[in-house]
């Protein structure tokens, strides 16, 4: 037998809403732990160093550097350390033709807010 299911979710993002609002605009909003000072991007609601839950928001420059990169036939993903952050972020690479190095968070072209990253290459015009 066949069974069809179609689901449209509304997903409240709770305490992380400012982070997602930032991503929509290509702004890297990070958490800063009030107890130990750790800055984390992406945020998680709890400090990754001391477990503290008192966290404020700080805006990072949005620049970062690729640590590791993997290519699928149609998309590229990377672990990126954003400048000022203690942790790393898993991002989609906007311009996979550039192999590695520094780059910048940018607004995703479509769909829900997500971590979308353009690599810097003076020889190329990053396509948005």
């Amino acid at each position, binding site marked *: 037998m066949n069974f069809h299911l179609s689901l449209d979710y509304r997903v409240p993002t709770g305490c992380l809403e400012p982070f997602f609002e930032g991503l929509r605009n290509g702004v890297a909003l990070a958490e800063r732990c009030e107890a130990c000072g750790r800055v984390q991007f992406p945020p998680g609601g709890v400090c990754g160093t001391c477990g503290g839950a008192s966290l404020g928001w700080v805006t990072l420059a949005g620049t970062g550097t690729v640590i590791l990169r993997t290519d699928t036939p149609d*998309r590229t993903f*990377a672990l990126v350390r954003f400048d000022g952050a203690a942790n790393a972020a898993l991002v989609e690479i906007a311009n996979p033709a550039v192999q590695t190095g520094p780059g910048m968070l940018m607004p995703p072209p479509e769909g829900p807010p997500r*971590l*979308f990253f353009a690599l810097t290459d003076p020889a190329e015009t990053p396509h948005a």
Partner: protein
Amino acid sequence: MTVLLAGGAMTPFNRRKDGSSLRDWCRTAFARALSDAALEPQDIDTVVFASESDFFTLQLNPAAVITDALALTGVRTLRVEGGGASGHLAVQTGAALVLSGLARRVAVIGAEASAAHLDAGKVGKLYSLSFDAWTDGLTGVGATSIYALSVLDFMGRTGATTDDLAGIAARNRQNARHNPNAHLPLDITAADVAASPVVSSPYRRLDCSPLSDGAACVILARPEDLPRSGVGRVRIAGMGAASDRVRLGDRPAPGQFPAKTKAALQAYQAAGIGPEKIELAEVYDSYSGAQLQGLQALGLAEDVVASERAGRFTGEGGLPVNLSGGLLGQGAPVGATGVAQILVAAQQIEATFPGLRPASPPRRALVDTHGGIATTCAVMILESLA
């Protein structure tokens, strides 16, 4: 107190094309496990069911439905979920119920329909929700890419190469050729792996475990609650479980599996042994490289890459690993995976495994399973009762 694996059975793992249902697979595995344990259905007072996702089974509250399908009424029934570790954690839960005295004879049944019910693209999309759905998930990243990033870090730290990974992918499929229940009994070489299409660099199609259908069942009880006091069966000597940060980017070393190390240490401590006493292992090889990453985290090799290259993990080696074929070869119907890993390891100790066996049966075997990317880790040490 001792908990025994009093019996067990599994269906073949494959992509079902015969129209049989998940309920059928569970019935088959349960009936054969009972028979193996020389018990009757009315001897069972608890059913622990394991499955990862209701999106695959299309059945919420599956424990009640499967228990009913097994013609059991009035028994304790519950479902255990821990991603890829669901089946293994279900066995640990069943053992805990026996140890607590709440249950006497537990049937642990794991099952999943990860191949027959949905097309592979949809299953992949659902699997990508196994990680942090809010950050990693929204990028559209799939499981293979997350494992790829992790193994790249591991390769950078250890010098493991894609040739090492391809060798594992080929060997586990060759091991599976002896296993009548295996999904991918393939006569392939490392060159075939290297020639298969890239899924997410460095991983290629043949580095990835398959989406499988199937079920597995084990029966747990104390010796005094079993026929002939369970003589000849295998005891659970130690169990451990531990979690890690969900996101790779939140981990200090994304290629290492520290939660697995913690779970293993708990199991070794409970068993009163060190890793050098382990004579055979079933390790969670969802991807070829994860086998090496796992072996390192479990403390089963001083230098895991050197040991791999020296043949230590082959059927003839000092520590045979995944003689069943592992997930890569035997297959991976998620809820059933860990139950089957435990079953085949016990069968190796009992010298009844219907596939590749070492020259002499191991006295102790280790079973390693995880969910996410070594995020939800479970380790069990099995020991012959003799």
